[in-house]
């Protein structure tokens, strides 16, 4: 009984701590979105829904939403496709397999700021590595940061570089749970490599992929540091996403209410999408295909 009580106490303690750390700021942010305030020091004034109306009427908001979705979706597709491919190669037995697996996971250990600095150094239009490489074959270098397409592309590229290893690790673990006898049964049944991939590997990775896509989706949609470090939302808001927009409104334009409104809408959108996603693809194995 004593132990039971202790467990309950620990449980309640950790829940309240979580509620304080996560719930507190969340509620504060939502509340803030109904006020207008110029700084955290000044007295906020009740603004009702005006922050939301302003945000929803602002073309920049819709532009940021589209940018965010484009960047998140394309980088997730690339991360998953590459991640599954690399994991399948690493799952084969070959000489130096352990070394290859370690190298493949390395980028995941890089701090985002380091990765962004490296990317900028490589892609810098005047003295970067790519620039000199191109110059040596007589081709000019484009300033990637001044074109919408190349700026978005760079963000996607760096995110793929940084976070594909996460997908590789998860998928590699998932691959090892697929019984080899399924592949043997399929080989005897007459299935080639491609058929085996679609009928055994992908269904076998289903649970892993559902979680990986969900996590990567949340993280990519909320990605702030990478975009801010690489482009600060530029050129001309072409890589602005909801997180950078919320930051810009709050801390550069000193429109705390507006920033909070953007953050709240972003939070609601993401929650809605996650709910629909989990309804469509339940993680619980037992519910599949019943």
């Amino acid at each position, binding site marked *: 009984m004593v132990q039971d009580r202790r467990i309950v106490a620990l449980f309640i303690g950790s829940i309240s701590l979580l509620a304080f750390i996560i719930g507190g700021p969340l509620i504060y942010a939502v509340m803030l979105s109904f006020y207008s305030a110029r700084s955290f020091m000044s007295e906020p004034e009740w603004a009702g829904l005006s922050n939301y109306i302003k945000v929803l009427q602002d073309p920049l908001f819709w532009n940021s939403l589209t940018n965010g979705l484009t960047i998140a979706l394309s980088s997730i597709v690339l991360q998953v496709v590459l991640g599954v491919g690399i994991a399948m190669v690493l799952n084969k037995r070959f000489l130096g397999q352990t070394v290859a697996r370690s190298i493949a996971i390395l980028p995941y250990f890089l701090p985002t700021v380091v990765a962004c600095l490296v990317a900028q150094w490589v892609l810098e239009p005047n003295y970067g590595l790519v620039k000199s490489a191109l110059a040596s074959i007589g081709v000019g270098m484009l300033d990637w940061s001044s074109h919408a397409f190349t700026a978005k592309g760079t963000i996607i590229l760096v995110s793929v570089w940084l976070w594909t290893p996460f997908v590789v690790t998860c998928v590699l673990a998932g691959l090892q749970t697929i*019984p080899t*006898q*399924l592949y*043997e*049964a*399929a*080989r*005897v*049944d*007459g*299935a*080639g490599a491609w*058929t085996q991939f679609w*009928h*055994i590997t992908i*269904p*076998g990775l*289903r649970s892993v992929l559902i979680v990986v896509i969900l996590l990567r989706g949340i993280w990519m949609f909320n990605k702030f540091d990478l975009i801010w470090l690489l482009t600060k939302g530029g050129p001309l808001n072409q890589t602005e996403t909801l997180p950078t927009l919320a930051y810009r409104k709050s801390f550069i334009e000193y429109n705390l209410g507006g920033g909070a409104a953007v953050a709240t809408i972003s939070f609601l959108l993401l929650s809605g999408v996650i709910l629909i996603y989990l309804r469509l693809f339940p993680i619980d194995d*037992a519910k*599949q*295909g*019943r």
Partner: protein
Amino acid sequence: MARISLQNVSKSFGGDQGPWAVNKFSLEVEDGELVVFVGPSGCGKSTTLRMIAGLDDTTSGTITIGGRDVTGLPPKDRNVAMVFQNYALYPQKSVYDNMAFGLRVRGEAKQEIDRRVRAAAASLDLESLLHRKPRQLSGGQMQRVALGRALVRDPDVFLLDEPLSNLDAKLRVKMREEIATLHARLGATMIFVTHDQVEAMTLGDRIVIMRDGLIQQAGKPLELYDRPANTFVAGFIGSPEMNLIDGQLSDASGRLEVRSGDLSVGIPEKTFARSGQNVTLGIRPEHLVISNGSPLEMTVNLVEQIGAQTYLMGTLAGHKMRAVLQRRDEIRAGDKLPIAFPSERLHLFDSTSGASLRMAQTGGKIGVMENA
């Protein structure tokens, strides 16, 4: 259906120099025959089966199915079907799709697939389960689906790798009967791998006993029981195990007898053994008889009543002995029973090699491998 021929098939997982998982395995399986590979784990029985399926490469030797050399061919080009120990059903596919998969992959017409799947389902009593997923099935049902998946393919050869090992005892007997019935009905060539000698005895038209990658003996079940080629086969076939007594052959008393300590047992003259040779005398527990007046006395240590029969464990002249009698209620531990060894039931083996000294050859289609 087809005949299978294995010629000097060897398998090493460590390169051309061995160690050999399967060593110079030669066997002819007749069209429509059900051959059982049996032996302890690691004896090479499953590896041999996998080489026939094409899942493992052969290190040397040739395999032909229906007169066609398939040694280098991938599994899909051998027209074999395989049933695995853990069923290997595709977990995300329904029973119907599991059975249809092999046909779809081969590009069969939709109506033909449907016809064959339903026919197989009907013969295996799976019709009501066709829409279910494997996880919603019991072990026995999963095994029937695995059989059905093999059945719809109409293969030349059925390969079954310990298909009953994951089932409980009752279900195992039932499925064993179903497989026997299926074999009788289809007249298909089947190879069945098991470590269970009862399965081997009851199912096989012929049994191949393996140990350490070598065939120990191949023959009809009762041939193996009656004339085991060596002590390993003698111990493996039959339950409880054959009694084996190490001794020396002597003709000092004017007749040939095996002496071991205080024990001496006269043996028939039909043997290659010479006087003075170290031999192992074998007699099955069920062949020992109680015979009043016999000078051999067994002290009973343990009595097991299993219903129709009474199992006895005891000692006879310092040797541990097992005896199986028709039901005897009155025997108790501590009793002393006069025991006789009927000479026509005796087996004699060379102590060093373990090879039988009683006969020249087995009744099977291949000779006995010399036991290394």
